């Protein structure tokens, strides 16, 4: 890929990243961290790509380990974030009681 295009993508993504979380109440710090944590689990895509073109057993073994770790990160991350956020809803239920 063209180096300039990559730099542009990088710089723009930095600003978007700054912008989207600049105003967030401390209540949501934990779920937000957890959600962002799940998003970087998308390294799973990278792990599958390297597993696909692994040539030696060593390469394959390492990339399979990467797939296991990345899957734990991604899937576990989204599930645990959802569980945290589940606690926030249900205020209406409480009012009905």
């Amino acid at each position, binding site marked *: 890929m063209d180096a300039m295009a990559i730099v542009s993508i990088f710089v723009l993504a930095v600003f978007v990243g700054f912008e989207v979380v600049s105003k967030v109440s401390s209540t949501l*710090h934990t779920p937000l961290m957890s959600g962002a944590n799940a998003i970087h689990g998308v390294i799973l895509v990278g792990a599958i790509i390297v597993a696909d073109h692994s040539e030696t057993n060593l390469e394959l073994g390492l990339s399979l380990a990467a797939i296991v770790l990345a899957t734990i990160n991604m899937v*576990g991350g989204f*599930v645990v974030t959802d569980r945290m956020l589940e606690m926030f809803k249900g205020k209406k239920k409480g009012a009905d009681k």
Partner: protein
Amino acid sequence: MNRTMYDLIGLAAGVCFILALKGLSHPKTARRGNLIGALGATVATLVLFVYNAPLNNLGWILGALAVGLIIGVPAARKVQMTQMPQLVALFNGVGGGAAALVAIVEYLNLGAEATTAEVIFTVFTVVVGCISFSGSIITFMKLQELMTTRPVVFPGGRFVIAATLAAVLGASGWVVVELGTTPLLVLAVLSLLFGILFVLPVGGADVPIVISLLNAFTGLTVAASGYVLDSTLLIIAGTLVGASGTILTRLMADAMGRSLFGTLFGAFTAKPQDVAAAGEERPVRSGSPDDVAILLNYARRVVIVPGFGLAVAQAQHTVRELADLMISKGIDVAYGIHPVAGRMPGHMNVLLAEANVPYDQLAEMDEVNPTFGQTDVAIVIGANDVVNPAAQTSPGCPIYGMPILEVSNAANVIFLKRSMRPGFAGIENELLYDPKTMLLFGDAKASLTKVVSALKSL
């Protein structure tokens, strides 16, 4: 499927991640935001199987995915609310480890064909990924209390850490010049070591900030591996997490009133604590549930200060029962929520929300602090560091400078504690010995249940 289609789907996944972070920043849209993120990640993964079909080693890949699912999903589903922070730390660590492994495999695969830029990005990913991995494991062990939660400082520590850092940089240069497997292995080992040394001196109360920082680190490694693997999606996703994680780390540090620098390097400069004085037996005033109930019955305003002990005892429903009972007696009740009470920012909000505590009863620190002067009773349930006056009065103690809930201004203070053990940061709390303080020992839930029944019978 052609490349354009594949790239477009990747772009769509990137947009999903932006929307996910945006959604997670607001209480109303948070849950949907998380689901959008999950959708983006799933689509990005599935499309690979179609675009590269048939994948080499498909059976192995599917097997590894299944193993990851079998480990990750139950862990995330079954974890107790109290253990959530360490699980997030662990997930972050394995993500960093995965990024480092991906970089290593790609490096082995490219061999001598690698361009200098690719090697540099590989080195970056390996270094930061390994630091994130071993550092997160240490934070996990601290939070799980598998090791001491106090800052671990040893003589000459800062020279060891500086020397390790220098060695990491040297090995990085070696990898770029030599392009061999051995230098890369050395680099990985040194980076793992540096990650451990980097987190060891961090004190218990500052651990959440470090988790957030390591989270941002992992994001950057994902972005760097995106460059090596020629994947725009990884660059976008990784950079987003890196940038938002950095901001989030700063927001958290601000909420705790600490500079990021002080958090990370404060332990090096902090003097060892005066432990001798803490060893003495000093008198404390302990009371019975009936004493507490009487005190509450004649109060006009009560502030409840929850901490980690409430989470451990799973007493959130009982505390709500107590609050409702007091309100029915015409007592003005508020919860004073310290932003970092518990083990993570927002921990208490999550916990009390589970017990359906009305949102308007939760008061943030800045709101509640000026009102302690008019408060008759402050009930501190399983919290310690966040109400410890040492943060204001004793320079040099690890939590000095952290804003606290000024419960000492209330007319009476009740501590519900398991024992006289100091809090997570390991610092003695003078307030426990104050004459206006009453201690009720025992499990928070059991104690609260007794107080509730005593109050009912009054």
